[in-house]
């Protein structure tokens, strides 16, 4: 029996949101990362960017107010904040590739201890590759945070020494938020910032495929 409860996606999203400062330009990847938007503070100006040419995304539209021309990168209906803007794909990826996005939050299949990421291609013979903007974000954003389960469906670690899956971004991840812990990727190694209540560092290490450093005391 576990003596701890893993964080829910909402809880992870809240932790990510807490680490986003006023004035930051942020791109939230498709899937779990989209949730982060729900936990951003209302009283701070934080700018959400979408690859398809939107800066200053607002909340979901109310029913009946959806506009087919106003969607995010995940093709969900969105709204635009006062002060937001539209632009073409060239300018949108100038923002991404040119280092103007302060932070992107991505999902991942695996992250290696050096910050390598595998996040959109499993490499199985029948898989259809579909990269979207994932690689540009991994390379271009000033900081890359990953949000994912700590272990996969079979219980195998998703944080590893070396990627087993095809690499989709080299040395780009700065921080990992899982349902068990928040971990910084540093030149000195993987430093644990925070853990789920009731989980011991030793237990966390057994669920992780790379060496962890306990840094929870100094955060």
């Amino acid at each position, binding site marked *: 029996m576990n003596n701890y409860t893993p964080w829910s996606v909402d809880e992870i999203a809240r932790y990510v949101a807490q680490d986003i400062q006023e004035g930051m330009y942020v791109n939230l990847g498709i899937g779990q990362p989209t949730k982060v938007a729900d936990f951003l503070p209302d009283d701070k100006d934080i700018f959400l960017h*979408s*690859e*398809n*040419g*939107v800066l200053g995304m607002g909340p979901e539209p109310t029913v009946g107010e959806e*506009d*087919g*021309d*106003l*969607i995010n990168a995940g*093709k969900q209906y969105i709204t*635009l904040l006062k002060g937001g803007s*539209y*632009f*073409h*794909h*060239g300018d*949108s*990826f100038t923002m*991404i*590739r040119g280092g103007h996005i302060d932070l992107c939050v991505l999902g991942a299949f695996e992250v290696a201890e050096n910050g390598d990421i595998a996040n959109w*291609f499993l*490499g199985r013979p*029948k898989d*259809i*590759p*579909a*990269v*979207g*903007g*994932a*690689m*540009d974000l991994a*390379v*271009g954003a000033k900081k890359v945070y990953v949000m994912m389960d700590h272990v996969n469906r079979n219980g195998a670690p998703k944080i590893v020494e070396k990627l087993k899956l*095809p*690499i*989709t*971004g*080299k040395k780009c991840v700065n921080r990992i938020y899982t349902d068990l812990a928040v971990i910084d990727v540093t030149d000195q190694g993987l430093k644990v910032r925070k853990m789920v209540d009731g989980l011991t560092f030793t237990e966390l290490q057994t669920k992780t495929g790379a060496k962890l450093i306990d840094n929870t005391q100094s955060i």
Partner: protein
Amino acid sequence: MLNKVTESAAQAMSNITDGATILIGGFGLAGQPAELIDALIERNARDLTIVSNNAGNGETGLALLLKSGCVRKIICSFPRQHDSYIFDDLYRAGKIELEVVPQGTLAARMQAGGSGLGAIYTPTAYGTLLAEGKETRTIDGIDYVLEYPIKADFALIKAFQGDRWGNLTYRKAARNFGPIMAAASKHTIAQVSEVVDLGVLDPEHIVTPGIFVHEVVHVGA
């Protein structure tokens, strides 16, 4: 008096022949020039190379174009998505060629094509399978992949308003690839929801100047 407004989508397709390379605007359904794609299917030119962000979904637009068997190859960033079963089946059956390009590289290659550059070094995809076999170079300590321009015979895009000189505005996030595709093709056909008189579009607000547009087709809004 120059008038780029073309009577019908069908007429606008008349120059498209077998083997053409065609850029098709849109991100998902936003900005997808549905009526032009329908006319292209009618046109039935074969052996086409299509460049578009996605590979269509459901049984309309781009997906239907693929189903029509006119397309030999598609260059896109995100073929697999909700309801993209037409593409998925064609691909798995080996009936369509696929070149997957990161979305930003797709945009940058079109911009290189439109602006006459011979090639660009981009950091995206360095060290991954999408860079396999490609030339690389380290510049100021950063690793880059050499990528070549995308230029096309035709672009089919969707805009909001257009005038007889081909000036265009767009609507919200339906702008996406429209402006850069217009510049990257020899012959750009834009479907618009409204044709307006010359001078109605504010010169400060025109997003695509008419120099990049060759035909404007009015479609029901």
